[in-house]
């Protein structure tokens, strides 16, 4: 008879600790934002008005919904509804892809207007607008990277659920991937009003 070491609560706590460090990482960028907003209040309003609120708004709804589907997936696996759990994971991955496609069109549009780091258009608009868009591309880019990592994690876990390696008895991997996904949502909850809705 073999004993396996297992501590689901410890696993989840480890994930939470990692997520706290992620918050500190993003908060550094938000502090830069706050300082620049105080320094260039008028320029920040000008720059924010150039962002398309519909792209940002649509992506907010997409991310909130994907957070719902992955939360539902946990209840599904706890109730041993494996088929439903896999479908909810697939829905979450689909929404992540929709988010990234939306982001692609949004950035393509802005780049076509000459708004991208170190562009001449931005240089002509002065340091305030430039700092806004540099921070916007960096923060949203880092967030987009997290979307990509989160979607990859959920894909791996969905396959493991399908193969029976993640079960209704042992699903901490799904829980931790979901926690990571919710962090992605949390960051966007602050990013959206600060970058898109300043007037």
């Amino acid at each position, binding site marked *: 008879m073999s004993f396996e070491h297992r501590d689901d609560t410890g696993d989840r706590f480890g994930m939470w600790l990692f997520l706290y460090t992620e918050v500190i990482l993003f908060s550094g960028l938000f502090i830069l934002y706050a300082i620049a907003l105080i320094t260039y209040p008028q320029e920040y309003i000008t720059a924010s008005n150039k962002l398309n609120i519909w792209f940002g708004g649509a992506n907010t709804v997409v991310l909130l919904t994907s*957070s*719902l589907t992955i*939360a539902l997936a946990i209840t599904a696996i706890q109730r041993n509804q494996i088929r439903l759990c896999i479908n909810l994971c697939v829905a979450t991955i689909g929404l992540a892809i929709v988010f990234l496609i939306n982001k692609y069109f949004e950035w393509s549009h802005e780049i076509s207007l000459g708004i991208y780091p170190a562009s001449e258009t931005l240089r002509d608009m002065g340091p305030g607008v430039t700092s806004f868009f540099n921070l916007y591309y960096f923060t949203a880019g880092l967030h987009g990277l997290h979307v990509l990592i989160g979607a990859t994690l959920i894909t791996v876990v969905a396959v493991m659920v399908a193969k029976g390696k993640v079960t209704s008895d042992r699903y901490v991997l799904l829980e931790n991937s979901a926690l990571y996904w919710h962090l992605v*949502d949390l960051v966007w909850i602050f990013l*959206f*009003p600060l970058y898109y*809705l300043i007037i």
Partner: protein
Amino acid sequence: MSEEKHEPVPYQTFILIWVALIILTGITVGVAQFDFGAVNIWVALSVASLKSALVLFVFMHLRQESLLFKIGLLAMLIILVIFIGLTFTDVLYREVLP
């Protein structure tokens, strides 16, 4: 540590929280259409904090976790306040920003 399973959160609870999050997003967007000066940013941050609390406690199951997890969140928030607060004691009292 013994493995205590969490009770599954009903599907309806998650869906209700999602509805609340969508409504709060609508409020944020709505308020941003009018210029209330500095009030705008504080409304945006307050609504965002409320949304975060809903995500943290319900979607992320923090409500069901032990006290240790909640103390962890509190510790992180205190570190954040120190981090932000100390930065602004510098920034706000500079003569000229570089």
